[in-house]
């Protein structure tokens, strides 16, 4: 609130806008530095960069959706269990039959739609705190899922595995799909009415309502987008693992990691500021950090310690300059 008064003059360097790129630059420098420093220059190729990115497609897809939820000043903790649920549903519906691919995708997206609507309804209409609503939803989804399956269930036909393993001119198909999704999300946020409503509602809900925006619809829309993206991530993981299991979402910690990635990308938890490109930068930063650790041969547990520190440090990079009181 307090920093609204100091509108910056035009044509000045706006830190907030460039911070994600700056962080990405730092991460890239660290990666290159370690690679050169340890004499592993064979990893400094374009192909390797693509493979680094390819490892975090599922996180990226989830994070694009999470960006919408966080932009409306909400949050979605149910994505991890939704990813597991959609992966299992898709793989069970297909059970190796290529003819069932379309119904399986429809079922997974339908599940995402329902969960998103329920989340949105609870948060927007019943005013349940988003953290609690989506946490509760996550428990419900995970419980229902574990009641029916306890191991890898169903299987994915070879045709569907092309989603994860196919390439177009050396670039993985999944990476292209992810970039197209990000592009679409950027377009929606930048050029559509829904997009500008998302920013208004996240920035100041009461002002948005007074300005005539149906705020609860916008919040529900953002949650539907978020859940649909999680469903897509679940489909991708089913294709990559060739089957769905009830723990793939929680094993990947997609709920907390997607939030961390979005926040590292400069979208603020209070809502209304940030965007998809920042999230993309956040995903790249995350995978670069992992690859840097691998190059440097950091022990797996020390890696985890450093990750925690880096998440906080990256977010502090944005927030330390703010003068508002946070909690």
């Amino acid at each position, binding site marked *: 609130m307090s920093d609204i008064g100091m509108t910056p003059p035009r044509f000045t360097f706006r830190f907030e806008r460039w911070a994600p790129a700056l962080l990405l630059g730092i991460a890239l420098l660290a990666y290159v530095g370690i690679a050169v420093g340890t004499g592993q220059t064979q990893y400094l190729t374009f192909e390797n960069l693509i493979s680094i990115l390819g490892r975090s497609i599922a996180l990226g897809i989830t994070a694009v959706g999470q960006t919408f939820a966080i932009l409306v000043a909400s949050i979605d903790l149910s994505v991890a269990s939704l990813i597991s649920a959609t992966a299992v549903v898709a793989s069970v519906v297909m059970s190796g039959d290529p003819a069932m691919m379309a119904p399986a995708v429809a079922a997974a997206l339908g599940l995402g739609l329902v969960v998103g609507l329920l989340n949105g309804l609870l948060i927007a209409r*019943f*005013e349940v705190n988003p953290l609690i609503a989506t946490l509760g939803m996550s428990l419900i989804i*995970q*419980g229902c899922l574990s009641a029916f399956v306890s191991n890898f269930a169903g299987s994915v036909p070879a045709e569907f595995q092309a989603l994860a393993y196919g390439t177009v001119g050396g670039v993985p198909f999944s990476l292209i799909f992810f970039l197209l999704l990000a592009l679409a999300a950027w377009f929606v946020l930048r050029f559509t009415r829904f997009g500008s409503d998302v920013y208004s509602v996240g920035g100041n809900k009461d002002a948005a309502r007074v300005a005539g925006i149906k705020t609860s619809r916008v919040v529900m829309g953002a949650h539907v987008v978020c859940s649909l993206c999680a469903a897509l991530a679940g489909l991708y993981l089913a294709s990559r693992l060739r089957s769905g299991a009830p723990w793939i979402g929680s094993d990947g910690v997609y709920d907390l990691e997607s939030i961390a990635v979005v926040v590292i990308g400069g979208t603020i938890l209070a809502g209304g500021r940030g965007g998809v490109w920042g999230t993309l930068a956040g995903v790249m930063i995350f995978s670069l950090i992992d690859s840097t650790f691998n190059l440097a041969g950091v022990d797996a547990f020390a890696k985890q310690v450093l990750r925690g520190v880096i998440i*906080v440090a990256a977010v502090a990079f944005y*927030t330390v300059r703010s003068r508002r009181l946070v909690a």
Partner: protein
Amino acid sequence: MTDNTLSAASRRRRSLPQINPVYFVLAALIVAIIVQNPAFVEPTGYMNFLKRAAPLAILAAGQLYVIVSGGFDLSVGSLITLVVVGSSMLLNNDPNATWWVIAVMFGIGAGVGLINGLVVCYLKVPSLIATLGMMITLNGFAFMWSGGSPRGYLTDSFRFFGRFNVTDLPLIRIFPVAIIVLLVLGFVLYWLMHRTNLGRMIHAIGDNPRAANLAGVRVNRVRIIAFIVSSLSAVATGILLGGFAGVSTDVGMGYELQAITAAVLGGAQLLGGRGSVPATIAGALTLSAIFTLLNFLGLPQPIRQVVQGLILIAAVAIAMVRRRHTGR
């Protein structure tokens, strides 16, 4: 905010003494448990129930400090793990080491809380992210310390607090030490929150940090204290849990969310400004009672998850509806 025209009915409703609904829920659940399992009225029945619920109750009461101050502390679960794993490493099967190991653990807890508070106050990182980072870091430390597979075990003198029962008492026969710890810590936390200036200041900064600041509250100092209280209570929880759970790297997993759930069941307002220590402890007992009841009913783990989710959402939704009706 409120309607200008208060109806007579709502005015009367407001003048009634407000009893937190969590107590009714808890009473109903206990009746249900007794119906299911009459042995529960025996001292061993309810004492064992309280003993098992004590760690969560203490943890939730500590978490409440951070919640009322307007934040979240997600790092408590991994702090519990670190306490259990770290104690088993430090004790090294030497019973004489118990007291200094406990002191070291509380020192670590105070340090963790201090860092959480400093990061939130001075680096302005939202507490959700700050304590999430701390959670990941502490989990990493617990793994590093134990080399991935914790070895050794906790000595009986360390397990005293969680496991030991005072026996041969008249009337109630047994009285677990864990309940004494719960009573003492619960009273201290209640007193600090509801009978001192510190408690009022925590409420104030959670309600409106800017107003509190203008009124002369040292917001940062109070917030840091709230985080330290939460971390210290997590250490106490870890010591109790070490008494009945084995040494593993996932003892504390999920406890941070259960603690937040318990506080919410007790009527605490997320994002600050309202909450009560006794009601939070009742919330923790309610949560444990629900799990006990589901156990007696023979329902499998997945159903427990679903029920916990439903209860969580319903509790907050009902609280919101009530708040809207009473206009507070």
